[in-house]
Each structure stands twice: as structure tokens, then as C-alpha cells.
């Protein structure tokens, strides 16, 4: 896989570059930014993140686990009655179920984050410049090596201060 990584100093330039790259539909894009930038996200990869699905899944699982755990374990020793309450006294069990719902939901969310933003990235490594976490922006445009010249030109015109061909 080959492509060009352009480095920008001004966020505005980057945004412009991304939009025009889209219109000229140059190959797949990936932008780099030191900050969470909703406009940029909108421009590069529109649409909702799938993480929420895992959250829901986790939550539901947690709730069910909570009820199953409490009811099943209580049924294990049906003699142990306390305080005139029946063996399966739901109200207290709901507390456990609730807490587990939250716990599993959170675990689901984090695993979603790990999967889509960390693991996905490691499957498809991109060039990186340490300045991206400090104060610079970057734009990676994937393209067949024959077109690199043209892409570099494109980036230069859009205010990229440096570029790097892969």
C-alpha cells in the first residue's frame, strides 16, 4: 500500500484539504489531529460510531447475569431463609442486577473503543508523526505510487508544510 502523508500547521487548511480531497475523490483518507475535532471527523468519516452497540449488548448481558446469579445461587441452598423473606425476594436482587448492567455496559463500551480505534489501527498501520499529538495536523491520502506526484502537488497547494511519500 502506498500513499502520501501531508503535514499541516493550520487546522483550517487541513479541513479545506480534506473536503476537496473528498470532492476530487482521491483514494482513502485519514486525518491526524492533536485534539478531538468534530468537524474533521464529520469530514473524514461521517456517520455514527458502532461502539454504542457493544454498550447495549454489555448492559443487557449484565442485567441478565445479575438476575441469574442471584436467583440461581439462592436456589442452591433453599433452607437458608432470612428474616421472614421468601427465598427469591426480587427487590434486593434488582440492585445487584442494576449494578451489573452498568458494569458490563462500561466494559462493553471500553472493549468497543479498544476494538475499533486501537485494534483496527494496528491491523492497518499508517505513517505517523509525533507532532500529531503536539501541535500539528496531518492528512494521509492513499494512492497508487504512480499518482503520488499528483497527490503531493494537491497537498502543497492546500498549505501542507511538509509531505512524505510512502
Amino acid at each position, binding site marked *: 500500500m502506498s500513499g502520501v502523508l501531508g503535514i499541516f500547521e493550520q487546522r483550517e487548511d487541513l479541513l479545506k484539504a480534506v473536503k476537496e480531497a473528498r470532492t476530487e475523490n482521491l483514494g482513502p483518507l485519514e486525518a491526524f489531529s492533536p485534539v478531538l475535532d468534530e468537524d474533521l471527523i464529520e469530514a473524514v468519516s461521517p456517520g455514527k460510531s458502532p461502539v454504542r452497540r457493544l454498550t447495549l449488548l454489555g448492559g443487557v448481558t449484565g442485567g441478565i447475569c445479575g438476575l441469574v446469579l442471584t436467583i440461581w445461587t439462592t436456589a442452591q441452598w433453599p433452607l437458608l*431463609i432470612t*428474616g*421472614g423473606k421468601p427465598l427469591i*425476594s426480587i427487590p434486593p436482587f434488582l440492585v445487584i442486577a442494576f449494578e451489573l448492567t452498568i458494569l458490563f455496559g462500561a466494559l462493553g463500551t471500553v472493549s468497543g473503543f479498544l476494538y475499533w480505534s486501537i485494534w483496527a489501527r494496528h491491523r492497518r498501520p499508517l505513517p505517523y508523526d509525533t507532532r500529531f499529538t503536539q501541535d500539528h495536523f496531518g492528512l494521509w491520502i492513499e494512492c497508487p505510487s504512480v499518482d503520488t506526484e499528483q497527490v503531493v502537488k494537491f497537498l502543497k497547494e492546500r498549505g501542507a508544510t511538509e509531505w512524505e511519500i510512502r
Partner: protein
Amino acid sequence: MIKRRDFLKVMGVSGPAALLEACAPPQTEQLIPYLVSPDNIVPGVPAYYTTQCRECPAGCGMLAKTREGRVIKAEGNPNHPVGQGHLCIRGQASVQSLYNPDRFRGPLLRDEGGQLRTTDWEQAEELLTSRLGQIKASGSEQRVAWMGRLLTGSMEQLTRQWLQSLGSERLLFYETFDYEPLRRATQIAFDRSELPSYHLQDARFLISFGADFLETWRSNVELMGDFQRMRKARSTERPDNFVHISQRLSLTASNADWWIPITPGAEVQLALAIIHSILEQGLAVPEVDSDRGWIESLVEPYSPEATQNATGVEVSSVQELARRFSQDSPSLALGGGVSSTGEQAVSLELAVLLLNAVAGNLGKTLTFGIPSALDQLATYQEVLDLIQDMNQEKIEVLFLHEANPVFTLPQSCGFAEALEKVPLVVSFSRLPDETTARADLILPDHHFLESWGDFSPRAGVVSIQQPAMQPVFDSKATGDVLLSTAQNIDGMASEFEHSNYFDWLHAYWDSEIRTQVAAEQSWEEFWPDILRQGGHFQEVEPVTVALRNFSTQIRLQPEGLEGPEDGHALLVYPSAAFFDGRNANNSWLQEIPDPVTQLVWDGWVEVHPESGREMGLQEGDVVTVTSPYGSVTLPVHLFAGLKVGVVAMSLGQGRSGELRYASGRGDNPMRLLSPQAEPESGSLLWRSVRVTLAKTGERHQLVSLQARPQDHPRDTLIAREVQDTPFAEQIFPSQLSDSASGEEHDTASSHHEPIDFYPPHEHPDHQWGMAIDLDSCTGCNACVAACYAENNVPIVGKEKCAQGREMSWLRIERHLHDPPVTQESALVQPQVTSVPALCQHCHNAPCEPVCPVFATYHNPEGLNAQVYARCVGTRYCSNNCPYKVRRFNWSASEFPEPLELQLNPDVTVRTSGVMEKCTFCVQRIQAGKNRAGREERQLVDGDITPACAQTCPAEAILFGDLADPDSRLSQRVADPRGYHLLEGLNTRPAITYLKKLVPEKPFDEE
């Protein structure tokens, strides 16, 4: 002494998990277990031996429960007429005096340096024989004296004969509390020098002139049982039939319906006034018509009006007393306790006997012809004579047997000094005491649970005392000492055909008793039966007596007290727990609160709050109490249950020496008393001095296990419940039916229709429950001691008690109300309620659902279970227990050797950090089921009795199965008086309390 291992080796077992077949103690063919087959002991199965309690002269029958050859519990012998299967707090605690860690490990001998050093029995007896040999040889008379506890039967015979062969008649049966005034009075009035027998159970109205018969007077267990029978028979319309007349609200007084706090010395006048009123109202029985003349002239000056000033009792009250006493016939008047033994003691007894006569109680509730062992007691005067002889160096050897006169005699009578004049003082005492500290030779006797013996508390009752175990220490039965010395003194051996006491006893029972009571039986038939029954018991027919004119012999001038006019009359009373101090080194008795004051581990002087205010005394102020004869230093306890102008001290504390539990607590009132004897009867003058109190400026913390109502604004909850309608009812009226009104209740668990969110859970087989009759409960604490013994409850000591860390599973809450006595109060309603508080085993137990690990839960038989092994110690259950009956092990419990031998192997000893509480003696429930299983039958009502219910002398506690509608319990809980503690919380306890019956209207109202 014997080390534990060796001890167990002798017993042939090693701990609860018995690995060895138990070989029974020596003389096995005579040792006959009460319940299991006589041939051997089975490890893991308790063996019971009949014996009898010698903690006091009452002589209650006892069963010693042994496991693997060690006594673990004392219980009453149901076959025995004295006690009828129950024991008092002291009897229950006797196992601790058996394993008392301070007991002498072996004989001691005072060396040249005046130090006691251990010796062996050969040496000790050698010294004794040589000295006695000289005396015997010299043929001199009365050189040897014996002062010891009351003996009858074989031991008395032996001792007397032994002394005689040493040329002495000096055999003094010395008990701290004698009944000489009464015996003298019967002599004067009926020409019979014997204590009368009482039949409370037949009485319908009872007046007690200072006789604390529920604590220490005569035979307290027996009398408490009779008292309860009398109370149960009384009418609910007029539930007051017991009037107590004294200066102090003792346990007995607090169980009275009416209490007359009377000026010291006015008792006689009151008694005569009642007689006067009886005659006046023409209520005297015809039997006394012949004596009417002298009686009338005797009581003539003592009309209720005339005596009102002295006694402070309203005329109407006296008349009502007279009316009730003569009309509710047969009635009974009891005379004179320790605290009313003044110069007028005999007169008081005479007046009381006369009162009984005119009410026609003679031969009904008061009979003669059944002499008591107490008649044998030496008078205090005889003791004084002995002291005199000792001072004149007439006594060469003095034997002290189970007696501690240095402590229990008035210090002013100089017994301690006189001891110095006696060349050889021999003590058979088991424990170090004030007397052994001055003895030259100490030959520790066995504890009564270790030795053979017999005792006859009264005619017709001869009980056997058999050893339930091997001696714990290197002690020797005194009887054996006497015989073995006799063997080694030339000229003496021939007079004693037996070389050991067991043979002596054997022979005595064969010749003296079998021949009289069962001559037809052979010894082989007779003896096993005696051992099973615990003795021989038969009814003795009383004799009729004739009243004699004693108007000339009755001393009517008011008694005087020595000491400053502005002083307070001193009232010395026997301690309910320590008796005369002999039990003071018993950790249970120290930790179980005093039944009246609820104080623990201490001695104190009781001062009425009013007097306290005058003298500027606060609770805990240390004062010096001074009488003409000496002074003691004690903390003050402000106590409203006193006649104003009287200060009270109990005898028993203030022990000196190296006693780990008793030493250095309180002080000994005997330092204050006058040495004079009561001239008429020769008894000790207990009420003889006035004392002055002087602040030392120091403070001393008196610890009460019960937060006292006066410390707190709100009225005591349970007190309200037991006094009037259940307190809960006032808070949750919607839920409760009126337990106070006579409305019917079906079962314990449904006093009202429970409003429950969840359905009740089933109790398929059993539902254990308990009923506690507060009308019967006297608050004597016997059940508490029984619980300590049965359940391995550790003691924690004064400091931890002060921190609220006591461990007792069962406590008697004592609810005193507004100060009963003021300056002018004459006839008061004590309003004292004793409530045994223990785990209520609630059906909806709040403690259960909060335990995170199921360490506490509800078992199918309705028990609130506590699993020590599972408890992690969150203590949430205790927070959530409204009755506060759960106990937490704040630190590891300690059982100083050899006390650990007393531990019940059927009950786990709890470790530090776990919660514990009353289990309804689940080990007994399991044992009961096991027994039923072995006998292939169903459990029946009465198979299982928890320790507390077993010992209760008032039979106030009843345990049983609520699931069985026919059980005694199911019937008892249906009683309209029944209610539950904090009923409004809907915890639905398994324990039902039966409300105390209290008179609704004033005494002298028709």
C-alpha cells in the same frame, strides 16, 4: 496438683474426641451413674451423678453432669425434696468453685520464717499426728477445738468421735448466718428448741418481717418454689398477697406486692399492732381464746393508732393487714432475717409466732417436729467463749473446716488476735482466705463434687454426696485425713475400725440409716437405690404445739444503736451471690450483676438519694464509713430502695489475699459491727451500730451492666410493657390487640393478625418457642449462671463490662420505677419487674437478612441460627437487633487453667471476631432428638429443656414446641397475659412474656 494431661490419663480419655475407652474412677462398683448403665462411662455421652450442693447449709439435691469424667454442669436433682430439681445462682456456679484456679494445689505448712510453703501429705499428717499424739498421751481435756461448717450424719459422727478420743467436746458448727433468735423464740413460745417448718405453698397471705427467703434465708430454692406455688394460686382480682417489712428493697422485698420500709426497731410494734387489730376486729381464731387474756394485755398498748408514729404505717393499712392476714387463712408470717437481728430479735420472732397463732396458722402453714440441721448450729456466744479460751491459751490445736471466721466474724471480737495464741491452727480450706493466712497447717479438703459425704438438711431428708470426678488438685478428703491420723496415733487406731472415710460412710449408712428406714432390704438392694435417688427421703409427721404465755419474757423496750445520734443505722445483708463471701472468688458470680443494683465486680455502700443529697454524695464517691468499732472505705451507690436514714452494705466482698477474682473489691462490713452477742439468744447482733460517712475525695467507677433509667430521659421501654399495656401498643395501636385486657389470644405468633408482606414460612416438624412468666420471675439470676455454665460463655472482667463488652447471652433486665421510698412513704408498691432478656428467635428476625454470608438465618424448626464458623464479623446483625441480645467476641476469651475443664464439649468455644447469642441450647435439642432416635420414638413435650428453664427455681421459664398444639407451651402462650417484646415491630418473637400481675388499687382500699 495433677497436670491436665495426667488427669485425663487417669480418666482414660483425651478431650472430647475420646480415643480411649473410659475406665471409671476408683471404687467403680459403687459409682453408679444416674442415667447410663452402671458398668462404665461412654465417652461423648454425659453421665449424671446424684450428689448434693454444699455451697450453703440449705443442702439442695444436685445432679453432677460429667463428660469423659469431668464435671461440666450442675443441675438440680428432681427426686430431691429440697430444690426439687432446681438450683440457685450459687449452686449453678459451684462448678467454678470446683475448678477454681486459686485452689490450693496441695497441703501447705508454715515454716519458721512464717511463710507458707508446699509440703506433701505424709509430712503434713506426720506433723499433725505427732502434735495430737502428745495431747492424746497427756490425756489433757478440751485442748482441741473444731470450728467448721454444719455437718450431719457420718461426717458429724466421725468428727465428734475423733475429737472425743482426743478428749474434747469442742465441736462448733459455725455458720455466718444463724437462726438463734427464732430458735430461742420457739423455745419460749412452744417449748421446742427447733426451727419451725413453713408451708408457703398453702398460705394465702404472706407477711415477711425482713426474712429474705428468696435469696439467702433458710432454704431459698425450696422456699422460692413454694412461694411461686402460693403466688400462682392467688386470685387475679386481688393479686396482692405478699407484704414485706424491712429497711431495704432486697430481691425478696422487690417481689412483694407491698413493701413497708420501716424504721429499724419498729417491727415488733407493727407486729403487735396487727395482732391488736386482729383481736380488736374479733378475727382471732378460737384456738387462742384460752390465751386471749394475756395476749390482749400484751398488745393492749400497741393499738394501730398508738404505734402509728413509731412505725409510720397508717391505721387503715394496719387494719387491712390484720383483716387480710386473718381472713385469707391460712396465712403466714415469716420472722426476722439477718438484717432485722437487733436487740429485739427474739421479741420480734415471738411477736411473729404469736401473729401466726392468733391467725390460726399453727399446724397449717407453720409446723413443728421436723427439726432442721440448722438447729445444730453453734451460737455466736459459744464462738465468743471459744475465743476467750483461745486467748487464755487453753486451746492447743484449732481445726477450721470450711469456715473463714476471721472474715465472717465481727473484727472487734478479736478472733484473728486469738488465733495467734493457738499453737497449731489447722485449716481444711480449699481456697486461700483470711483465716488460712493465719493458719499453720493447711490440709485442703476436696470440693464436694470430688468427695463422698452425706448431709441431712432436715428430718426425713438424708442425701448422699458422691464424687462425680477425680480430684482436680492434690487435695484430700478431710474425713480421710481424720481417719489416717487416727491410725497413726497410738491408742486411737483401735477406736476407728475403718481406715478411710468411704468405708466409714458405708458403715454408717448400713447401720444407722438402712436399719431404720429399710431394714427389710439387703445392703445390695438398698445402696444402689440410694445412689440413684440421691439419698433417702420420707415425710415426717409434724407434732402439735401449745402456745405458752410469754408476756413476761418478751422484751419490749425499743432497741438502741451504738454510735453518734446523727449517724445512719447500718444494715448488713447477705450477698445473694457470695452468701457470706465464700463464693467471692467465683468469676461468674462476680460478673453476673447483683440482682438488685445491677452492679458487677464491686462492693459498695448503699445510700438513699435523699441522704446522699444532704451529705453531698454522688454515685461513685469513695467514703469512709465509721462505726464505734472500726471503719471501712467504699464507693457510694445511691439506691432509692432504702429506708431513709439507713445505709446498707452487703457481706461478701472485701476479700483480701491472692484471690484473682475477689481480692481488692469493696470492703468487709464486719469491721463495723459490735462484738456483743444478743443477750437472749446469744446470736450475733447484726443491727447494732450507727455509722457516719466521710468523703475521701476519691472517685470509683461502679459498673452497671444495665443502663439505668434515671440516666436517661425516656421511660424504660420494657418496663412500660410489663407495667401497663405493651409500650409498642402506644406507638403502633393499629396493629395490636390489647394484651392488658383479658381478651383472648390464640397462639403466641398471632396476638394480632400479622400484617406481612411475605407469607410466613413453614415449620414442618417443630417450632421451638418459650414462655416466660414475669409474674413468677423473681430476678434471682440462677438462669444466667446456668447459661454461663452450659454455653461456655466467657467472662470479661470489670473493665470490659464497663465498656459494654459483657458476653452473657441471657440478662435479667431489672426495671425499677420512680424512687419507691421517700422520707414519709410508709406502704409502697415496689413496682420492680425482672425481665429475662435473651434472643427472641424472631419469626421475622431483623438480624437475618442483613448478614452477607448466611452466618445467621432461620432454621426450619424456628430457631434463629448463628453459625460461628461462617461469621466474618460485620456486626450488622447486632445493629439490627432491637432487643440487643447478640454478643460479639471483641477479643479472644480466656479460661485460666483448670477452668477449661468445665467447658461443655457439645458447645463450640467461640473465637475472637465472631458474633454469638442464645441458641435455645440447640445442643440439648440435638441431644434430645438423638435420645428419641435411640429409643425409636418421637420427641415428646418435655424431652428438651434449656439450661435456663431447667434451673429456674420459680419455674418461670417454659420451653417447648409451638407446632404441637397440645404442648404445655402452646397452652401457656394462649394466656391473656401474654405479649411480645416490641410487638409493634412485627418481628414476631418465639418468646412470649406473661405480664406481671400488679395490684390496681391502694392496699387499704376494700
